[in-house]
């Protein structure tokens, strides 16, 4: 899951320079994430994992770390009933 998220992050110009090297718990907002990049990332993650993240989870904290994104995506995949690869 984390590696797939990193691969998707690396497609975005604001994140590409550190997507493959940043730690799972490092703060992405401090590293260069901005709100519009988080929108682009969200759309790509949802398409890739075929889930829809609920509105109340679309917060800064969800996009703060790779681990936080992974947790939210896993929760949605479990709800959907198709376990993550």
């Amino acid at each position, binding site marked *: 899951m984390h590696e797939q998220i990193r691969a998707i992050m690396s497609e975005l110009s604001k994140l590409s320079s550190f997507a493959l090297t940043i730690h799972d718990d490092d703060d992405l*907002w401090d*590293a*260069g*994430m*901005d*709100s519009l990049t988080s*929108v682009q990332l*969200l759309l790509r993650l949802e398409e890739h994992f075929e889930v829809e993240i609920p*509105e109340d989870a679309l*917060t800064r904290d969800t996009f703060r770390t790779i681990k936080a994104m992974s947790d939210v995506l896993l929760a949605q995949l479990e709800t959907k009933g198709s376990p993550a690869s």
Partner: protein
Amino acid sequence: MTRTKGTYAGSPRTGRPAEDGEEALRRATAVAAEHAADVDRGARFPEEAVAALRAHGLVAAAAPVHLGGQGAGVRALTRIAERLARGCGSTAMIWAMHQIQLACLLQHHPDAPLLKRAVAEQWLIASVTSEVGVGGDLRRSSAGVSHGERANTYTLRKQGTTVSYGAQAQGYLLTARRDTDADGGNQVAVLAARDQVTLTRTGDWDTLGMRGTCSPPFDLDVTFDGDQILPVPFGDIAARTMVPLSHLLWAAVWVGLAGEAVRRAVDVSRRRGRGGTVPDNPALSLAHARLTGIRAQLDAAVAASEPVLDGSAEPTMALGVELNALKVAVSDTAIEIARLSLDVCGMAGFTEQGPHSVARILRDLHSAPLMISNRRLLAANSQMLLTLRGDR
């Protein structure tokens, strides 16, 4: 998540200022109104109105009572902003901008050594977020914090492009990169006292409206201690407090200005009615209808923002979209309302003099679409709308 739970009085969801505050607000608004034309003409700071606000304790309105403030929550703050704007747009905007800085400090650095003094002495705190070279982006800084000569001291040199009441403030809340090598979006906020800042004015403030806010560019050279850096990343401060409260309080100022324009149009129509003229200009009822709409939109946005501002909920993308939409709608519609009011008032509205002038109001309101440009917010919303779920 990094958050310092503060003492910003966002939680008392009172709809109105306290009863004894009503008279204080009425008096301060009257002083603001008395000097509004002169402040506007001279592009001078509204010192009489700010002195009146201080005398009535309204400069510290957002601070909790135990610190010497008035414990006003966001709903009460919007009411005060709206009322003050009826007297003087510049005074109301200065007051609103200061409350935003104060709320950021109370919520995100309640233990700041300077904060108690700032509240007790009713400092005006100026925002220094704008900067040469960042294109008006609140969330990017060019200047970075550097280590000072002494241990645990820091320095910051920043070129602010628009520093409202910069020369009159007693404190400054500045944004900067966390250090000179940090990413432009990795920002901190710093509270500095006036005597820690060397202030060099680098331009003038001679504008179409909001002339009394005295917002020229300044270069600031600041030396400060480590505990003056807010412990929460500025991105979180912006998302949780500064941006929501800015959109709400600015909107309240513009609603107040538009409301005053309509009041003047009604007054003109009433006088004409007494003279035998049937007051049937549809511009008046249209202005009123538009005013009712932006008031309702502001009320709804206040309700949606309260849980975020009191720290009990996370700011979502949906709330961001709603607040951007509020800002764009109120800023544009308030101008339309003032234009319609001018149509009703006629030459009595066009002149700068007299009780039915809407000239200053109309000029002041033209600043509204520019304060965080509507074009930028609309572009952001066009992207963020893609994240919304359900029926919007």
